[in-house]
Structure formats: C-alpha cells, structure tokens
C-alpha cells in the first residue's frame, strides 16, 4: 500500500480545525494498512499552520509555499496537490468535506485520473488493505457501501463522522516541496473574499448550535435566538428557508446541501424539519425542537420537543437558563 496524503485546509496561514477529522481518518487508515501518512499544506506564509500540522502524529508534513498560491483557486491548488501526490506515490488522498475540498478534490481527482468518493462516513480495511467506504445518499435517507477501484482514491471525509486528531508531543518532519505554478496559465483569480464576520463559534466546531427557520418570520426573529446562542456560547444555524429569504448569511445553512453538524446540543427553533434539514443535524447528541406546529416532523427526531410560539418560549428559555447557569 502506498502513502496517504491528507490535504489540510488553511485560512490566513492557520490550520482550519475541521481538517483534523480527515487527519485522524488518514492517520488511522495508515496504521491499519501499514502505510505512511503525510499532511499537505498549500499556500503562502504558512508558519502557523506548519507548526500546528507538525504536532498531529503524521509521518511528515508536505508544504508547498509559493506566492502564486497566496490566495486559493482550485486551478492552482489542484496543480500543486497533484504534483505532490504523484511524487509521494500516494494512493489515498483525503480532505475534510468543506467548500474548499468540494471545489478542489474532484478537480484534483480528474487530474490524477483517480477514483473519487465524496463525504465518506467510514473507511473499511481488510487484511491491511482498504476494502471500501460508506457514504450517505439521498439526503442521508440511505447509507451506501461503496468500493472504489482505482490506483489512487480521492475522498472527502465528513467532519462529523470522524473525531479530530489530537496534539502530540512528537513533531513530524516538515518537507518543503517546490511546485512551479505559472499564474499566466491559470485563467482564474480570486478577486475578493467577503467574510461574514461573527464573534460566535464556527457552526461546524460549536458544541451547541441554535438554529432558526421559517417560523422565526424574519431577521428580527433571529435576533431573539441570537440572544439565546450568546448565553449558551452557541453557533447560529439556519434552515434553507431562512437563508433563501436572506435573513441570515448563506454559510449558516444546515442540511444536505449546506453544513453537516453534530453538536452536543442542537436547538431547532421554528424549523419544520424537512428531510434535507435533518440530513444536516440528525447526528447531534441532544436535539431540542421548539415549534408551534405539534405535527412538525422535527419532533420525530427531537429528544425534547416544546410546542410553543418561539416569540414567547425563547425569552422564557433565556430567563430559565440564566437561573440554572
């Protein structure tokens, strides 16, 4: 079995926490298949990310740093990643599912003529070899056992399905790799990143998520649940309906086609619970639903359901939590 390369996402030179799921999946699979695991960082000015990546227990950290890679484009990063993967003779390439990896990995897979599998829930090994994967289909209503028959397999890894790699005392070797990128040939460039600034935890990292839906009736409704979120140190999430209506930014959407989350506590307020939304949160440890429709499907997955109007229930909830905190 060849090497395993785990592509780590970095933002402004720092390792993105979500990547730790793929790191863990990669390191564990390397152990099960007697192969080596290498983390791959691509960008420019990566000192902080290199430092974090070197303490995760991988066999090495491959680093491609180049001014032409300072801002991310799938076109340039796919060239860099493909060069490294070929030179490492890797036959498994992983990255945690995110907007970054969903853009980059299929392009990379095509470049490598690799087999691609998206958003895997598990990696199966048998007699020291990878024997297959599981992944969700049809908005999570089905789990599929799949096989990928290819010399190189490229896979995105669902963050909530794998624990995070933890910091170790040993340090992995940093291996700089130089890749020639000619910006003139790329035909694309990133003009601007419009960041949705928030002091709250990231949706995919938070241990508590408070989500709102159509039942909140407008952006003012979100103000109410934001108070609850801030009291709990929670992230804010939303159903598709609330995002489509423009009440909250797009990257807060939880569901099949948005973010998949599995916090300790998920509080769904004014969310009816369409299957597409459930696909994004049904693995949460404890689910609370507050909805004034007693027949809302969200109650079928909620551990605790409260049939009530949010405008009355949420302020009460805030007061009651203050009492016990």
């Amino acid at each position, binding site marked *: 079995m060849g090497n395993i390369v785990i592509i780590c996402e970095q933002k402004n030179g720092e390792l993105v926490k979500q990547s730790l799921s793929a790191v863990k999946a990669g390191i564990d699979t390397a152990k099960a298949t007697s192969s080596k695991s290498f983390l791959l960082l691509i960008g420019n000015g990566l000192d902080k990310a290199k430092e974090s990546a070197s303490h995760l227990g991988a066999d090495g950290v491959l680093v491609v740093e180049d001014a032409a890679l300072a801002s991310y484009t*799938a*076109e340039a990063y*796919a060239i860099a990643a493909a060069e490294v993967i070929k030179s490492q003779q890797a036959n498994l390439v992983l990255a945690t599912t995110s*907007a*970054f990896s*969903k*853009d980059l990995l*299929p*392009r*990379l*897979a*095509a470049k490598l003529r690799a*087999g*691609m599998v*998206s958003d895997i829930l598990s990696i199966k090994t048998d007699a020291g070899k990878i024997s297959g994967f599981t*992944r969700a*289909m*049809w*908005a*999570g*209503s*089905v*789990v*599929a056992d*799949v*096989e*990928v*028959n290819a010399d190189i397999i490229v896979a995105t890894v669902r963050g909530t399905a794998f624990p995070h790699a933890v910091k170790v005392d040993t340090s992995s070797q940093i291996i700089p790799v130089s890749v020639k990128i000619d910006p003139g040939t790329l*035909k*694309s460039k*990133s*003009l*601007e*990143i*419009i960041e949705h600034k928030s002091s709250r935890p990231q949706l*995919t990292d938070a241990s508590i998520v408070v989500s709102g839906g159509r039942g909140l009736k407008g952006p003012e409704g979100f103000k109410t649940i934001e108070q609850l979120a801030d009291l709990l140190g929670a992230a804010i999430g939303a159903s598709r309906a609330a995002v489509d209506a423009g009440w909250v930014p797009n*990257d807060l*959407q939880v569901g*099949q*086609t948005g973010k998949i989350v599995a916090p*300790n*506590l998920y509080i769904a307020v004014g969310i009816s619970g369409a*299957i597409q939304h459930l696909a994004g949160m049904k693995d949460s*440890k*404890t*689910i*609370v639903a507050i909805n004034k429709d*007693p027949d809302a499907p969200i*109650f*079928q*997955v909620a*551990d*605790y*359901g*409260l049939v*009530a109007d949010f405008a009355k229930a949420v302020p*009460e*909830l805030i007061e009651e*939590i203050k009492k016990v*905190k």
Partner: protein
Amino acid sequence: MKILVTVKRVSDPEAKLKIKPDGSWIQTEGVKFVVNPFDEIAVEEALRIKEKHTGEVVVVSVGDKVVTEQIRAALAMGADRGIFVNYTGAYDSFDIATILQKIVEQEKPDIIILGKQAVDDDMGAAGYMLAELLGYPQAAFASKVEISDDKKKAKVTREIDGGLEVKEVELPCVITADLRLNTPRYASLPNIMKAKQKPIKEFTVDALGVTVKPHLIVKKLTEPPKRKGGVKVESVQELVNKLKNEAKVI
C-alpha cells in the same frame, strides 16, 4: 453566446424512498422523477445569460430514454435544443465528465453550467472533473454570475465557508449553481407545447468514443440507524430541567 447546461433525472426530493429488499438500489416504482433542483437553477441561469447577451442554450442529459423527459422540461423552460446521451449502465462522476467532455468538444460552448450536486447521490463532482478534463477554469457554488461586456470573462460570486468569494474566470468556463443563484421559472403551457417541437439529438456513448468504466461501485444500500423521537415537554421550565439534569448539556 452558447451555453451548455446539464440536467440529471433524480427522484423527487420530497418522495419517501424505500430500499429494494436485496439492497441493490432504491425502489423506483411509483416514485416521481424530476430535474435535479440544482440543475433547474443552472438552466434558469443559462436562460438569463442568453436573454441578456443573446445566444443559444443547449441542454444535455445522460441515461435511459426516460431522461428525455427532463430534457423536455428544460426545453419547456426555454432552452433551445437538447442532447440525449443514451446509456443505461452504471457510471460514476468521472464517466459523466468524460461523456460531457466529448459533447463540449463538439458543441464548443462559451459557458457550461451544472448544478453543484445532484440530490440523489450527493456526489458533487462531475462539474469540476469536467473543468479539469477540458482545462477550463471553474466557479463552484455560484450565487451570482456576471459576464463581462467583451464576453471574455465571468465574475462569479461563490458561496464558501465563512462568507462569499468573488472569482474571475476566463471563458470558456464551468460554473456550478448554488441555491441562491436564482429562482427557476415555471414552464408556461404554450412553452410546454413548443418544447415538444424542439430538437433532441441522440448519441450513444460508443458514438462519442467513450468507454464507461466506473471506479466507484455502490455495493449495498442500507437504512441509517433511525433516531427515536423523545418526549414533548409541557413548559420551558421542564425543558431546562431536562437539559440540565437528564441530558446534562447546559
């Protein structure tokens, strides 16, 4: 401008699905099939670009003869003509990208628009694979597309983690549609009638010179563990009490 747009036939996202007893696939009897919702958005965007910049919208689908229903649906929305690639075997995203590559080489569109993912297999790969095979730039998860006056570039706003990115791509390019790109129009009755007369050209994969050989093989489908619903609480006080003392999450 010529815009090529893809439509996939998928089971109705609202349909309640059952797995076949042998686990080989889902039961399709009695299930309604529709255009993948993201592809509908792709078709709408293609039509809007055509309406603004003039040109032609060509819609392509791959599969069994029945996928012509979805091609007709796109033609009824306003696309000009269809391409049907007749193939009934198993395939993966790379096979689809390879087939589409051949269509692009014949049609030479300025822009190719696909849905960001299909809501049945949730793979989200074919568009980016196609871009790579063609050596075209890609703009994934588009929520806004602006074509430059000289029609040489597209400025695409993309939905990414933590916000939005504005990316500039040279044409020809591949764009994948996200939810907020537009609201697809309904086909009017006259347009549904008109669509019946619009041409659909048929190809086999052999005629395109493609050998379909999927890397990814689905072995078995199972139902995920069902989450049991819990209790309904009567009051906010009871809820907080349970969260604190039973679930121990606050």
